[in-house]
């Protein structure tokens, strides 16, 4: 069974938000839904969304690949996103990134054998004053990270003890984030710590 097969109300609620000529706009919430639920968008769901929206799979991929929040490959329980834009780069994010990849033994698109970690280089996260910066999944920002701080964080996460972020995400991510026209919430629930993996 495909992802949206048993969720006709959700699809209807998403599509109802846009006028008929703007049906393509529903691409983003549909992708968000699958990404939230599965932590990545498999090829099968790309086809499915293309069919629902009435566009080509190429276009779904084009939209998806533009945004770094969508992933075509499975992610670890903790998706570590290292900011690589100017301020962080000047503050040593390149070294931090190399150290992270080396420590975990993975490169972008891979997951550690224990399923805990995946890594990604992202563009500015908007916290330039506290560079260098790592975002852990949807949990929050870890700021002014030195290598020691990073290793301590990784060790804590391996032990299953999350020390909490330095700052929460500036944009609050809803649980059940598909809001319909009446304001009711639908869709996959976002659980902390990526537990719905």
């Amino acid at each position, binding site marked *: 069974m495909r992802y949206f097969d048993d969720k006709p109300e959700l699809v209807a609620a998403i599509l109802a938000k846009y006028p008929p*000529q703007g049906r393509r706009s529903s691409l983003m919430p549909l992708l968000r839904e699958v990404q939230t639920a599965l932590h990545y968008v498999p090829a099968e769901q790309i086809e499915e969304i293309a069919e629902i929206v009435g*566009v*080509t*799979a*190429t*276009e779904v*991929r*084009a939209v998806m*690949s*533009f945004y770094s929040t969508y992933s075509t490959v499975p992610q670890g329980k903790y998706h570590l996103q290292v900011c690589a834009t100017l301020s962080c780069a000047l503050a040593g994010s390149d070294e931090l990134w190399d150290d992270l990849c080396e420590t975990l033994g993975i490169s972008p698109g891979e997951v550690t054998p224990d399923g805990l970690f995946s890594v990604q280089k992202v563009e500015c996260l908007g916290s330039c004053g506290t560079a260098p910066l790592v975002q852990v999944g949807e949990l929050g920002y870890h700021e002014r990270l030195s290598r020691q701080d990073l290793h301590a964080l990784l060790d804590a996460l391996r032990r299953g003890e999350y020390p909490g972020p330095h700052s929460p995400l500036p944009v609050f991510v809803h649980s059940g984030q598909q809001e319909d026209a009446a304001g009711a919430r639908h869709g996959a629930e976002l659980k902390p710590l990526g537990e719905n993996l």
Partner: protein
Amino acid sequence: MKVFVDDRAVEVPAGTSAMDALFEAGRDVPYFCSLPYLSPIGACRMCLVEAGSPRRGQDGQWILDDQGQPKIFWLPKPMASCTLAASEGMVIRTQTDAVRKAQAGMVEFTLLNHPLDCPTCDKGGACELQDRSYEYGYGASRFVFDRRHADKHYPLSDLVVLDQERCIHCKRCVRYFEEIPGQEMIDFIERGVHTFIDGYEGGLPSAFSGNIVDLCPVGALLDNVARFRGRNWEYDHTATICTGCSVGCSVTVDARNGRVERIVGRDHPAVNERWICDAGRFSHALEEEGRLTTPLLRRGGELVPASFDEVLAYLTSELVDVPPAQIGLYSSSDITLEEGIALEATAQVLGSGHVDHLPRFSQLPALPRPTLHQLAQASAVVIAGADLGAEAPVAELRIQEMLRGAAPPPQFRHGTAIADLKLTERMERHPERLAIFSSAPTSLDRSADLVVRGDPQAALSAIAAALEGNAQAASPYLSAAELLRRPGATLVVGSELQAAGGLRLAEKVARSSGAALLALPADSNALGLAYLRLVPGEGGAAYGEAILPVALVSRCRRLPAQWPRLLIVHDTTLSALAARADVVLPAVSGLEKQGTLVNLEGRLQALRPAASEVGEATDLIPALGLLLQALGLRSPVRGLISAQRALAQRFGARVQSLPPEGALLDLGEPFLAETHLQHQPEVGAWAAAHLAAARARAAANRALEVAK
């Protein structure tokens, strides 16, 4: 609307972009993403200019400056002129230091990740990026880091190969597929410098995909068939027309060392705009296979190479007792008007009525023919018994244009509007304006709301009945009748209907609905040849109808029902027919001859020979001359000049001095005769054969080394 470009004033129609206004004024800006017939999107940011406009105050009068002149409100930053609409009194500056600096800076940005492997790039020498960098760039780059590396050999299909490193993200190819054939095939994947072009639907459709090679401003999309065959300055360019089908697209044929290496589309705003179909583009791959370069003569049961003198001696001795009136002359319908009138004259000299050309239809419509331009602007189109993808592919693109509903781009002094602001990405299409009635699936089915499978003649009868008010409510025939009743509607009929003799019915439908009627001719010059006496005369036999003592057959691939006792074949290759001939004369292909063709609109267009090595191959006129010489006769048409003179007498037009866009002429009354040798949609088979040859040649480009 008056616009001032660097203090030159030009008058342009409302809705013109600033880019077209400044080109109209004789100025130039660099651009990579704009292209005639495509929507302007301002992706490359190269065409930056400084612009400002006067404004009207609340009283409706121009706001004046201290000198009492309308005050120019300058836009704060340089603007991309392609997406900027010109307005009344606008002032555009293209020559200031700020503009030069902005343009040079953009060249530098564009070149950041461009690999500069121009020496190995097939686009080198004809590359927009090379030219614009030279004209507008600093000539140096301050970028010292590693360039982006990506896949340099990424085949999008068998015929088109992508070099991802060279791509400068102008989006022309993405827009082309969405806007022109209306098939979204490829898109940008990723973003920023990592962006690359790809499609996940598996390859490119092989109908019009080659056009993206022409429009790519850099060497990112390349013709895999002509890969590494020559540099652009080494080619001999010949501006001619394609003889593949009756559309008559303008093309440029590029040859090197006597070999046609590639064909590219040429802008003809009234016919093909700038697009050609893949079959026409890659047809040269097949044209050069197994070419005959000398005459062949049957000796001891075998066809052996011979000289023209030997052929003449042979024919002279063989034709001694043959009455000239018993000699048959048959040709394919893709010969030029010049060859046609020579054929007609030869038949008259022989006194033979055994003359015909094929494929052709028995009838021609008596109604005025719509032009392709009118087809593209029609309010609705009903297609009956035609598969345009197989019979006249580029006419399909004009129908897509009709479905998009935009008027054709205006023409300026610099040519077709480069940035026509009426065109946008993802324009709404109107599939309700198109109805198709045919027995087999056609390539346009995906674009039409109304598609009915079945006998097109029966469908036309039902439409005719519906036009007279005898139809059930809500039948597809009633809908089609309503489409045809719209002012400016066009009925298109093709081979399936015409071969079944349904043209009179189509005429009736067109007359009673007021729609224009476009009957697709059977071959690239079938329409023109209909105005020459090339049909069986009194007591004359059609091709293969009677056992003749002698017949000369030019470029027909169909085997006759009755074989003549002495068969002379004039063909480019040793076809199945030629293999059974007694004499084979080498022929030139449509790429290699000079003459005049008449396309489906009735437009006379000049055909010019490409610079290719053809050996002793000739067109039909010398072949006819040889036959007459063997009989001791002499025709008034013995060469191109005399043929042109004869055509001038017949049609009152000098075909040797046609304007570049061709000429729509009244050719008088056609000569018609019933024929059972009906046209199958042979262009489809032609296209399939040519594309197969092109693929083989593209594969051979790579296999050469493997074999070594």
